[in-house]
């Protein structure tokens, strides 16, 4: 092992910790957007992911994603069941990867806020991770069908050079595996579950925007681990300057896109609604980070600014669609993660400094990126539909409508989020 690799290890440990923090951050980001009577349930959906995904990942997840390839679709889940025979030096990868699986699953919860039985969610999590997340992770990062493998999609379309696809698909940190995947899953579940009572009639205002802003801040912070931690080193022949240069570029691009996307989002708001909102700024942060996720290693900082600006503006426009089409994607998982994920994944074909159309390298990469994006949409759609309908047909997804009105926090968790009563013996409670 090269000495420089120890530095990488220090960084990936920090990165894994940062990405783990993203899920509590997401819990607050989403939680602030719900009404006070359902904030705890929203937070609990993220904590459910934190509880369920790690055992799944340790038992068969790592192996399904990174085990011996089965038909380009997934790894052999039994090969390293329970992490047996995983070399000690691979644990840092296990650490990093488990956090991705957790946050991806947790992202979905925003689409189906306020109305899902907690038990149904706990059953959904391992099934969905197993059928949708792990196979896609394998296909993209584990040498499967969406990678540059000679048997992969890109190789089939544009041929093979030196044993790998001529045009290597680019998904640096998870535009397909994470964001398109979670976005599609959210959409499919919304269609299966239906809208909240009162959707598009009653106001459902965020109950605490400072909580949402805090969540956005933690997400941005954690995203540095997500993106810059996704650098892949050669342990034996560590490329010092590659490590320093690439992680630095990724960091700068991540910030550039997030910043520009705030501007993009609030600009749309200023024009359309006359006011730049804080919820818009928080949403812009996330939209920009989503879009840059697959692209962060392939763009220049200027390209990242452009991508962020466009992604912020497009997502700001996209979140209105649910009212037009009547699907209650409660906290805009589709509008932000699916749209942002698609924008980022496909824009690589235009903006990549090496391979991008705007840099004079033709349309091939653009085609490949579009194909992997669409493939991810289809895979995730089918996998989620299977799990979603199975749960609907068995234990059922929804709580009673009356319970929805009185508030899911009490019904599912027996708690109320807040009690600001002025005195101990006081009879008041708020937020239930």
């Amino acid at each position, binding site marked *: 092992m090269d000495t420089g690799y120890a530095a990488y290890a220090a960084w990936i440990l920090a990165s894994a910790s940062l990405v783990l923090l993203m899920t509590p951050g997401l819990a607050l980001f989403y939680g602030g957007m719900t009404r006070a009577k359902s904030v705890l349930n929203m937070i609990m959906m993220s904590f459910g992911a934190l509880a369920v995904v790690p055992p799944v990942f340790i038992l068969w997840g790592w192996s399904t994603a990174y085990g011996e390839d089965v038909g380009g679709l997934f790894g052999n889940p039994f090969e390293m069941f329970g992490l047996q025979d995983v070399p000690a030096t691979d644990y840092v990868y296990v650490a990093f990867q488990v956090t991705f699986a957790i946050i991806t699953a947790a992202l979905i919860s925003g689409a189906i806020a306020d109305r899902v039985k907690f038990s149904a969610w706990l059953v959904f999590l391992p099934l969905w991770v197993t059928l949708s997340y792990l196979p896609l992770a394998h296909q993209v990062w584990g040498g499967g069908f969406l990678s540059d493998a000679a048997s992969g999609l890109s190789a089939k379309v544009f041929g093979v050079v030196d044993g790998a696809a001529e045009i290597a698909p680019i998904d640096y940190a998870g535009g397909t595996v994470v964001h398109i995947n979670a976005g599609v899953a959210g959409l499919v579940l919304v269609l299966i579950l239906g809208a909240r009572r009162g959707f598009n009639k009653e106001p459902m205002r965020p109950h605490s925007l400072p909580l949402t802003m805090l969540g956005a801040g933690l997400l941005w912070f954690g995203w540095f681990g997500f993106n810059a931690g996704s650098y892949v080193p050669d342990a034996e022949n560590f490329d010092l300057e590659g490590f320093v240069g690439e992680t630095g570029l990724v960091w700068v691009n991540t910030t550039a896109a997030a910043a520009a996307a705030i501007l993009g989002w609030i600009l749309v708001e200023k024009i359309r609604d006359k006011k730049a909102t804080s919820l818009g700024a928080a949403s812009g942060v996330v939209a920009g980070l989503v879009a840059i996720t697959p692209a962060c290693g392939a763009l220049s900082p200027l390209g990242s600014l452009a991508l962020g600006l466009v992604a912020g503006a497009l997502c700001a426009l996209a979140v209105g669609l649910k009212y037009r089409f009547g699907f209650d994607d409660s906290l805009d998982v589709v509008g932000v993660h699916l749209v942002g994920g698609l924008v980022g994944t496909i824009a690589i074909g235009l903006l990549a400094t090496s391979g991008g159309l705007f840099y004079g390298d033709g349309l091939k990469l653009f085609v490949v990126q579009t194909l992997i994006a669409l493939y991810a949409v289809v895979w995730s759609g089918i996998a989620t539909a299977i799990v979603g309908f199975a749960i609907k047909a068995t234990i059922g997804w929804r709580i009673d409508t009356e319970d929805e009105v009185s508030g899911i926090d*009490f019904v599912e968790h*027996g708690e*109320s989020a807040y009690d600001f009563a002025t005195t101990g013996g006081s*009879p*008041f*409670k708020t937020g239930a």
Partner: protein
Amino acid sequence: MKLVTAVIKPHKWEEVREALAAAGVAGMTVTEASGYGQQKGHTEVYRGAEYDVSLVPKIRLEVVVDDADVESVVGTITSAAQTGKIGDGKVWVVPVESVVRVRTGETDEAAV
């Protein structure tokens, strides 16, 4: 003049407001309240310890109306707020001796 005070279920507020507006009532004052009655509160459990939340959230409306309108206002509220389930609330009427509109100093009928 009379003061009509109504205690209703919070999710009925929107309907009551619309019904009153339709009935020509243009103003009212609203407070958040908690009710105690046949409708029971619920029990919450924190780290195994049970907490009895004995009160249930209510909305309390006050509407000052002309004597002539009392019956119709009470009726409007009652029918709009009704769900038929325990806890729908109460409406009561109290005599008012005078009313002033702060902005103009107008009094009584003109002030409502």
